[in-house]
């Protein structure tokens, strides 16, 4: 019986940690955003970019942010993006870093909306 309990606990914990991994770690995302100075261009609240040609990121969809960062990593490849600044910025990021950054930026209060 104890064995069964242990197995159930292990399964539940595994499921929780897998969910956490898929969704990204907000606290680690914040640490990474600070480390790589993302706010310099995108604004301290990620809602007031330094230059109007840079995007607001606060509250943007998490999965889109992941896609965009991965696209910069792809560079010239299929579905990639070339950008003088972002190409350099994404170089040191692992796939987990990208998930964490996206989770953090998505968690911030934003002003963007979806309308027709």
């Amino acid at each position, binding site marked *: 019986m104890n064995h069964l309990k242990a197995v159930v606990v292990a399964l539940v914990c595994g499921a929780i940690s897998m969910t956490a991994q898929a969704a990204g770690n907000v606290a680690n995302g914040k640490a990474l955003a600070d480390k790589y100075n993302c706010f310099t261009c995108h604004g301290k609240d990620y809602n007031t970019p330094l230059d109007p040609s840079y995007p607001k990121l606060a509250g943007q969809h998490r999965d889109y942010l992941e896609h965009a960062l991965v696209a910069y990593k792809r560079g010239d490849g299929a579905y990639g993006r070339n950008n003088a600044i972002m190409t350099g910025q994404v170089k040191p990021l692992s796939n987990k870093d990208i998930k964490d950054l996206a989770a953090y930026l998505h968690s911030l209060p934003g002003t963007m909306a*979806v*309308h027709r």
Partner: protein
Amino acid sequence: MKKITALLVLVSVTQVGTAAEIVGNAQAAKAKIEMCIGCHGIPGYKATFPEVYQVPMIGGQGAKYIEAALQAYKKGDRKHPSMRGIAASLSDQDIADVAAFYAQQTRAGSAK
């Protein structure tokens, strides 16, 4: 030398003139956003390749950024095929109008 200076002045004046001509008009965008709303106007709409992800929220995004993004698709710096196709069909004026339209949207709604 004077001629060259005059020519340079003329060239720069012309360039300023060209840059100043394009001003986004949110009202004029109304007839140009049919291609956008099928994805960006539907809450939770997802693109399915190369990853499955919700298409970006663009209501309330900065106009200059929306313009820059569309120009990057048009030029080919951004390679997503659906957006490349759409951006290629837009003139610079269309891009400025569409950008102005989405930039003025707020959480409360869209200007009439």
